[in-house]
């Protein structure tokens, strides 16, 4: 009797598994952990408004999301992926190879990247990008030569900075936040240094900055703190001398414990990120398979809800969550592009 039951249930399990992959009525979304909260918001709002099943949103990181997204066309592949940078040529090629040829790109807005420290620290932090580069790069220029970073205290870089150890907690290389930080802060800071300009010119290599200014130091002052930004926030609370690098929304939520570091005198705030005066902001994208629109139920409606005014406008509900909105013209163009399903082409 018991054996009968077990056999029957085992058979039932096998039979069910065979039908599992058959139908899908939920939208599947993967991609960047930075775009994740915004996609979450649209998904929940969409489901509440229309009563459609809520899309499944998974945070896989930008690169991981592209791998899964470009896996192919069909129900077992996701419909949409979020990205905290533009799709790379190699990823575009992967998509093409796997038959994912008709993809639309949507630039949904900008996200601020903040550097912050504990409120317990009296210092009114105000750094230039060049100083950030001097503090965190693996190699810095000294007397016309690139040497391993000798700075251990902020005052080593500039006597006006505090006489405390450089301790900066930041994201690991697998994170999109790290990519954005390297590009926006490290490269820009690198270019601000006069000596670098001379060295780069002498080398005759156009990509000199990208090749030599991307590496973060690994001798202690820069600490890779994992993907969890809340952990960095906790570490900052317990160590008033440390600074941390994370998405602006974490600073926004923890203003009672943390204060933002001004960059070139500009404080990280929604307004300064939106008007571009705060230099560390990056574009956020999503990519959608046009071949799935109209096939996967509600996908077309969902994508239109994502780019709709009440989501993306500067007083939309995504702005409430920390997204820095596009200008009006950009937004209208985006809505047109998405409506007409204009395919993206990435050539470099």
């Amino acid at each position, binding site marked *: 009797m018991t054996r009968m039951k077990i056999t029957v249930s085992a058979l039932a399990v096998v039979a*069910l598994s065979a039908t599992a*992959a058959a139908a899908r009525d939920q939208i599947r979304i993967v991609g960047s952990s930075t775009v994740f909260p915004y996609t979450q918001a649209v998904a*929940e709002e969409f489901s509440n408004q229309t009563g459609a099943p809520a899309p499944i*949103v*998974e945070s896989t990181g930008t690169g991981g999301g592209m791998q899964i997204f470009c896996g192919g066309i069909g129900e077992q592949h996701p419909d949409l992926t979020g990205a905290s940078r533009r799709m790379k040529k190699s990823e575009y090629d992967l998509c093409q190879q796997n038959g994912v040829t008709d993809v639309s790109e949507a630039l949904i807005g900008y996200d601020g990247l903040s550097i912050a420290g504990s*409120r317990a620290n009296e210092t009114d932090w105000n750094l230039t990008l060049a100083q950030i580069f001097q503090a965190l790069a693996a190699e810095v220029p000294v007397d016309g030569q690139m040497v391993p970073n000798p700075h251990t205290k902020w005052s080593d870089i500039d006597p006006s900075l505090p006489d405390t150890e450089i301790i900066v907690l930041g994201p690991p290389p697998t994170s999109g936040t790290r990519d954005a930080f390297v590009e926006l802060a490290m490269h820009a800071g690198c270019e601000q240094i006069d000596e670098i300009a001379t060295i780069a010119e002498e080398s005759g290599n156009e990509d000199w900055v990208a090749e030599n200014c991307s590496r973060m130091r690994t001798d202690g002052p820069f600490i890779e703190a994992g993907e969890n*930004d809340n952990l960095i926030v906790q570490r900052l609370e317990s160590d008033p001398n440390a600074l941390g690098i994370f998405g602006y929304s974490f600073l*926004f939520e923890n203003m*009672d414990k943390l204060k933002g570091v001004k960059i070139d005198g500009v404080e990280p705030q929604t307004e300064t990120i939106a008007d571009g005066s705060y230099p560390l902001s990056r574009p956020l994208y999503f990519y959608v398979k046009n071949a799935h629109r109209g096939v996967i139920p509600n996908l077309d409606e969902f994508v239109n809800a994502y780019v709709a005014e009440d989501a993306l406008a500067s007083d939309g509900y995504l702005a409430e969550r920390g997204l820095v909105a596009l200008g009006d013209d950009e937004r209208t163009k985006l809505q047109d592009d998405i409506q007409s399903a204009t395919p993206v082409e990435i050539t470099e």
Partner: protein
Amino acid sequence: MTQTDLPADLQSRGHDWASPRARANVARRRRSETVLRVVGLGAILLAFLMLGILLWTLISQGSLAFRQTHITLNVPVAAEHVDPADPAKGNYRRVIAAAMSETFPEADTTEQRALSKILSNQAQFVVRDKVVADPGLIGNEVRIRVPVSDPYDQLAKGQVDTTSAAETRRLSDVEIANFRALEEQGLISKPLNWALVTANDSRFPELAGLKGAIVGSAYALLICFLISFPLGIGAAIYLEEFAPRNRLSDVIEVNINNLAAVPSIVFGLLALAVFLGWFGMPRGAPFVGGLTLALMTLPTIIIAARNALKAVPPSIREAALGVGASKQQVVFGHVLPLAMPGILTGTIIGLAQALGETAPLLLIGMNAFVTSTPATPFDASTALPTQIFIWADSPERGFTSRTSAAILVLLGFLVMMNALAIFLRNRFERRW
């Protein structure tokens, strides 16, 4: 005491129990015993201290999430906002804003906007659902009780330092004053937060709950049990009762023990490659999670089942064989029923382990944001540990306490399962 006082046999062997050397020896042995006791006690105290600190931080953080601030409000549903012909399409955001401006008649338009933000985003949908269910409410008032949004929830729980500088707070002085006014009117209450276990995940901490994760975990455990239990018992019976003792069965035994020690993430990678890659099973389904956990639990169950079978005395088998039972009858009629309590105990402990497992589930996509309860094991969902993982990574303040609360819920389930295992063992286990 002199040597002659001692019994003759000890004297003859040359033992001098009273000599300084012998006394020193005894004292040393006593001392080392005392040290051992103190160290042992110290180890236990240290372990308890650690456990205490863990529980204390969890409870002190998590207890905040066991209550949720709610607001009770009379909402007038005006016909100008909601069309009686199609009540589902009404502008319920406006309806809520109108209700708030009635409570604060002197507020101007921008202030009214801020006032609506006291209520959770859910409020408009609560009103909508009531109106859709009963369109006669249009033109009348609806009384609702909904959660307040996270910043105000933190305020009501005393987590906001109102004396600090305004720019360090989420809420301005005006917003705090508005909320205090509502409190004075008696509209604010802090009931038990049942939503924590009856609601699905949400991006708003005040609405987020664990229902989807609990159901997802239950499905995954069910699948895990259905697969690993019969397979584990089958393997154990074969190895213990039928397999010849030779080199092959030794190799199998060693490998099963090794398998039990393989890190769980390896099973996750295996599942990603095989179940998702080759078989094309859906991402994030509890069914796949269950399969993966079954791979992990199987060795534990086989080892437990073998030990339980081994503990059944040979006399039982011999007696049954002696009266003419076949080997199969011996196993299924006598040995297995007697070993069952031990097998069940091992199974439950294996399942409890599987319940707390996170790493393999992350790899197969069970860490998605899902706002619905899975209806079948093939719908995407989260599990309890992955839900904790997601919440721990969310910026909103409300999720900090909810993460601790979710950990407490998970610990609660684990304690229940272990208690069940102990109960089964004490109640049914036989000793020979």
